[in-house]
């Protein structure tokens, strides 16, 4: 017998590639600022994904971009990462690495 797949309507979820290759669970990683899942969206947005992207820090912390920008905009932030109080430096995404 030969099985030929003619058409496959499949279902998948998209996930942010947070660089964390531990893809084991359904564990919802949340934004440290708004406490909403990365795949959700920041409080200011209604639509997740490209419209409410993530931002990666050199410190390895990841936030909703909108959340971080809002935080950085406050005087209290002193331009630091809210998690570790190191000066915020946005990381270059190592795109090549994720699917090499």
């Amino acid at each position, binding site marked *: 017998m030969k*099985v030929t797949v003619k058409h496959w309507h*499949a279902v998948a979820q998209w996930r942010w590639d947070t660089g964390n290759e531990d893809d084991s669970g359904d564990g919802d990683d949340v934004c440290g600022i708004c406490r909403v899942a990365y795949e959700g969206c920041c409080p200011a947005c209604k639509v997740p994904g490209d419209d409410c992207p993530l931002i990666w820090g050199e410190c390895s912390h990841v936030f909703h971009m909108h959340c971080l920008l809002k935080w950085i905009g406050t005087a209290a932030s002193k331009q630091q990462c809210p998690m570790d109080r190191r000066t915020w430096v946005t990381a270059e995404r190592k795109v090549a690495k994720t699917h090499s």
Partner: protein
Amino acid sequence: MATDALKAQVRSKWQDAFKRINSNNPGITGLMAFSEVGHAVVHEETTQHLFSKQSWSHTLAFVKPINIKEDPPPKRADITTARRDFEVVNYCRRLPSDWCLDDDYMFSDEIRQKFYLVREDIDSYLSDYELSKDLSHISRLILRLKEWYDAWTPPEELGATIRNAFVLVFQTQLYSSLGPTFVKGFKDLIASTFPSSDPDIPSQTLDASTWVIFETLGFLDRYENIIASAGYEHIEAHVLEACAGQWETPMMDTLRTWMSEKVVPWLLLMYGRDANTTDEARALLSTIGSRFDFHVAKTLCDLRTREIFDIIVDYPDSAGALQDLKECLQRVDQRGALVKSLRKANRKRLLHPGAETRLILTQYVATIKCLRIVDPPGVLLFKVADPIRRERPDTIRCIVSNLVGDDDSGDSLVDESEPIVPLQQADTEDYTDPNWEPEPVDAGPDFRTNKPSDVISTLVSIYDSRDLFVKELQVLLAQRLLAITDDSTEKVEKERRNIEILKIRFGEAALQVCEVMLKDMTDSKRIDGHVQSQKASIVHPTIISRQFWPMLESSEIVMPGQFQILQDQYAKEFSTFKPDKRLRWLPHLGTVHLELQLEDRMLEVDVPPLEAAFIELFSEKNIRTIDELINAVGSVDKSAAFKALLAWVDLGVLKEDEPGTFRLLEVAEEAGPARDSSSRIAPTTEQDLAPVTSLQQQQAEQMKVYWKFIEGMLTNLGQLPLDRIQTMLRFAPGYDQTIEQLAGFMEAARREGLVGVKDGLWKLTPR
């Protein structure tokens, strides 16, 4: 008759009287003077008579109760002499003395002693009546009683006192002799005087003189309640006959016409006989008339209350009955009875376990429409609906299916013509609203004013929260969107239009998640377009934003062989297009279109992924056991695996050689597979359509998180009532379940033997 002693007594009294009147004047001068003051009747001759020992006995003889069966009637010739005696007697009665009481007593005693004569007649007529049940015996008895009464009545000349005394003693004797048999016969006689609603049966007419007899004998006062209840029963019978099951047009006006044409003339005869003018009659009738009118309303109200369930079933053909009910309820306070009757009928006829939710909802919507007519504020509805929402939570799902047009029956619960209005914010009362009215008194604490709104809003408002609807809507939308296998923009657009309409009801914000789901559909298509342009694939996935879709049934299956490769290729291309994202497959969802090339035949089928996975495994090796197959795809429920294999058996592709072992049929076997292939066409079960966990399952999942909490609580505190558990769970982080959900969970835990409940107290089952 009069004994010597009596005569002596009478004489002495007369002498006393004389002395008093004469005031010790010589001869009878005092008496004469007394006479001059007012009474010319006392002349010498009568004065002589006055002392005659015969005067009183004459009188007594004249009023003596005679036996009309035997005694000759008193001679009229005597009347002149007798009248003189009466005058004297009467005259003396005016004296301030108490001796006349004694002679009344003597006279009354005579009546009592002779009453056995009347009683004999009563017994004889009544036994005739009891034998024949013929009311004419009662009529004749009444006439006969009148004869006795007339014969014994003291003449008017004797004055009112003795007549009153007679009436009193006669009636007392009479009533004590008329037992229940008579009362029943009398009631039937009265009832027979009502005009029959059947024109062919003439009613027995009693002429006015009969009513006079009733009055004379005191029956109208004595048996007033009997007569009224005959009237009430007549009304009840007529209302039942004319109105039972007649729901199309309002009956109240017809009944009122009947009242004024048939009952009022009777009432006039009965209660208006003393009236000389129309106005007097009206005044007399107004009290009794309104009592009868009230009884009509009450009887109709009771009837409609008993019929309410079927009236609702018949709606809108039963609009008349509802109009009647509304009018009656304004006169008769029967709202409580109506609620009780409808709840009882619902429990018995609607909410039994076998009833289809769809059916429940249809009746429920009709209930809403009907009760809106009867009770616009909606208090009754709220009270009636309560058991429905408590006992059948799946009605929400049914309502939502209907809302999105996902209903097999095709007909909508809602009038298409009814304008869509936003759901009200249930818990705010706008006191500045000029039309604001206080809630009806029977509203109760849980009632929330339902301003006039459409059926769906009313339906939704019965439930505690619209969130439940939105969640259910999400689940349903997810199922429908994932079921779209071809790249049909049209189907997605249809869902989008649906959601647009629902936004009007539920508000934009509540349906935001649905927006994202729809966007995922269009995004998936766009992404797929791009991926296909880079590297063509037969995989066309729907890529979902997991936070915005309802919890999907999870599965651990791993697609074997070429499927795995197809998935990986696609995922890689996706990540090239969207460098910061990756795909995570939900392998058990979706549909695969396969072509099978077997030795002697070719097959094209649409199958669920698990079936595709299994057949792929058979392409490597043509005999496999079920356990082997389950291992090969990772982990899958054995019954699900069986179901998938049997699908192939039905298609004649596999054969179960021995239990649990399947063989690929490279060459088709004649005379068909063991199973009838028609079962393949059998209607898909809900399980097939529902890759998405139902709301209830989801809630159960959520509840499991709180089980540790409950367990700890019960360990430390022993036993607790449900509401205490609910209160304490509020301290658990993120707890948002309603007490009903908690109750459902505890019940499930009880079935699993984790807890027990007694007298409403829950405790852990000792292990």
